[in-house]
Structure formats: structure tokens, C-alpha cells
């Protein structure tokens, strides 16, 4: 299947504890031409970013075991190659404090759910430098 002649697709890691939400984001992004991997919480996401390379991580806030803020803090204090990974936070939390905390921890952008497919793709394109 691999075709070395075509440029590599941008790789996105989707981190959300809801399987249907992961599927919804993944399908939207795959349809737009991105390569998508998934993790169900911050711990699994940390393992993935340390072992594979990504162009963007999309992360939910409220997740069991390790939430999105804790994940972001670990990510930004990690080694240089993971610390600079762009992060898009998407959450049901719409409070000013949550958004401020996300920015303080180094989220590149914060979206409040629900996020429509076109809106998701548009932000992912901006953050990965991809064009549709």
C-alpha cells in the first residue's frame, strides 16, 4: 500500500475517552486525507507520542486516569521533539478559566464541543500547515 512517490500525510493523534467521539473525529480527518491514530487517555497518549512521530495531537480535557491538562503539562515538559508538538484541545468545558489554563499549559488552540466536521478539519489544516 505504501507509495514512496506521494508526500507523507500529516499524522494526527486523537485523544478522547469516548470511542464514538474518537471515531467521529478520526473519520472526519481521514476523509480529509490525514493519517489518524488514537488514544483513550493521557497515559496512552504519552506512550504514543514518545514512540511515534505526530504532527498534531487533539486532546480532550476530561478523561479518566490522566486528563488533558495533565497530559499537556507532561508533554510540554518533555524532551524537545515532543515538547514542541502542536496541541489542539477540544472540550465540553467552556469556562474562561479552563481556556486560560489550556493556553497557559501550552495548547495551541482550544475548541469547545460540539465541533462540526468542517470546523475540525479547518483547524487541523491550520495547525499542521496542510492544505485541502
Amino acid at each position: 500500500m505504501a507509495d514512496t512517490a506521494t508526500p507523507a500525510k500529516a499524522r494526527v493523534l486523537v485523544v478522547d475517552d469516548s470511542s464514538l467521539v474518537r471515531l467521529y473525529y478520526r473519520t472526519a480527518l481521514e476523509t480529509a486525507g490525514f493519517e489518524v491514530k488514537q488514544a483513550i487517555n493521557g497515559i496512552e497518549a504519552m506512550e504514543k507520542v514518545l514512540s511515534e512521530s505526530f504532527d498534531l495531537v487533539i486532546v480532550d480535557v476530561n478523561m479518566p486516569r490522566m486528563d488533558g491538562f495533565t497530559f499537556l503539562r507532561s508533554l510540554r515538559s518533555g524532551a524537545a521533539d515532543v515538547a514542541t508538538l502542536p496541541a489542539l484541545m477540544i472540550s465540553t468545558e467552556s469556562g474562561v478559566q479552563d481556556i486560560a489554563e489550556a493556553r497557559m499549559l501550552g495548547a495551541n488552540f482550544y475548541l469547545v464541543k460540539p465541533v462540526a466536521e468542517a470546523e475540525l478539519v479547518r483547524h487541523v489544516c491550520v495547525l499542521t500547515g496542510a492544505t485541502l
Partner: protein
Amino acid sequence: MDDSKGGSSHAAHISPEQVQRFCEFIYRRTGMLFTESKRYFIDRRLEDRIAATGSSSFQEYFSLLRTDADHEIEHLINSFTVNETYFYREDHQFRCMTASLLDAIVHQKEPGGTVRIWSIPCSTGEEPYSIALWLMENWPQVDNYNIEIVGSDIDTRALNAASEGVYGDRALMRLSRDVVSRYFRPIAGGYHQIDEGLRNSIEFTRANLIDPQDMRQYRDFDLIFCRNVLIYFDDASRRLAAENLYDCLQPGGYICLGHSESMSRISPLFRVSRFPDAIVYQRPEADHG
């Protein structure tokens, strides 16, 4: 006893009395009522099971059934349940779900809250998968809630097929090409397998609608699809099933039945709710006693 040659496709003679005994047995175990008028349907399945178990007569088979040797009751139930369905069947109810029901349901919930939807009987998975697909394609709030979809059936063979998620063209006929290409991958023999992430996002379990013990494990559903199964039950089993389902619903939760079924004729517990796309039934918010 050995009045047939082993493996013969001709069934041993089954008398009307034997059919009656057999039907009573099926009724006691499953609530499904078959009468002499469905003799052909019964005979065909009985012949299959007599041959499959290597029994030489109805009598021998019936003894085996009553002792439940090799889980024969389960095999028999599997052969008697009707598993033919397709994606987006009776889609006016799915339209009702995303246009009206879910808004009413989430009105009571915080963003990020859990919405529980139950498909029973789910047969080979078309209905619960349709619910998930419909939500992703049509409900703008799909990522704003934690949606849990459970598919249950009495037929374990159907449940295995549901988990596999492999379908032929007939099952997919109502889906757009776009939806098929987004959520299915073609496999050998012209079949399509549904996305692994989607398969893993639905919990498939065995449940018997008329077994209160079984049904007690299922609680707090916001929405139940129970379509085209109550028609197989007699009045008593139908009411028992409906009242079991009532207990499985959250107060204020809704149930969708098949187009020819009416809860008003089954149980007085539910309230009729008329929406532009469908008539559904609601467990009232509270008993004002």
C-alpha cells in the same frame, strides 16, 4: 427408534401433538408463541436441529432439548429467531431521534454527560450500528456527550455476527456510497466489514426480554429501540417484556417500537409522544402518586 437413515434430509414424522408440546416448550423458554398455523416454519427448523444433533426422532431430540445437552436450547433459539434486517431500516425513527428525542434527553444533562441507547433485539448488528452512523452523520452534538450504545439479543449466533460486522450488499442498500466508503472496508466475496473502531464502540450482550433476572442488569437507558419483536409474543409476554423495558428506562426516557406495534395496546405505563417524524413512547418523568 431408528426409523431414519442417519444424515437423511427427510425429517422423522412429527405429529400435531408433538408440535404442540414443542411450541409450549419454546413459549416457556422465550415467550415466542408459535401455533399450528406456523407449522411449516416450525417443521423446517425442527428438521434442521434434529439432523444437526444426529437425533433419530422427534422424541429423541425433544429429550435432548429438555436436558439442554450441548446447549441445545441456545442452538434452537438461534434457529428460531428471525435475523434478517438492513441498515437505516425505518429511518424516520432515527430522524426523530436526532431531530427531537435527543434534544429532549440532553436538555437534562450537562455537556459531557452520558447518553445511553439500547438496541434490543439487535440481531446481527445493523440497528445499533445504524444508530451510531446516523448520530455521526446527523447529530451536531455527537461529540458533546458520552454516547453509550448497547446491542442485545437472545440469539448468541446473531451477536457473534454483530461483533464481526460483515455485511452483504442487501444490508447496505439504504446507505449512501459516501457512508459506506467512510465506515466500511470491502473484503473478500463482495462483503463489507464495518470499521473496527465502530465495532468496538458498541457493547454486544445476550439478553432475554421476558426474563426479569436478565433484564435487571440493564438500567438507565435514555432511549430504547425495540422494534418488530413484540409481534412474535402473546399478550402476556408482550406486557411482561414492555414492563421489563420500562424498568430499563430512565424516567423521561423514550422507547421506539416497530411501525405495526403500539404500546398503548400493550401496557398502560407509557405515555404516547407524538413527534413530526414518529410516534414513540415515554416513561413519564415521575409518578405523581
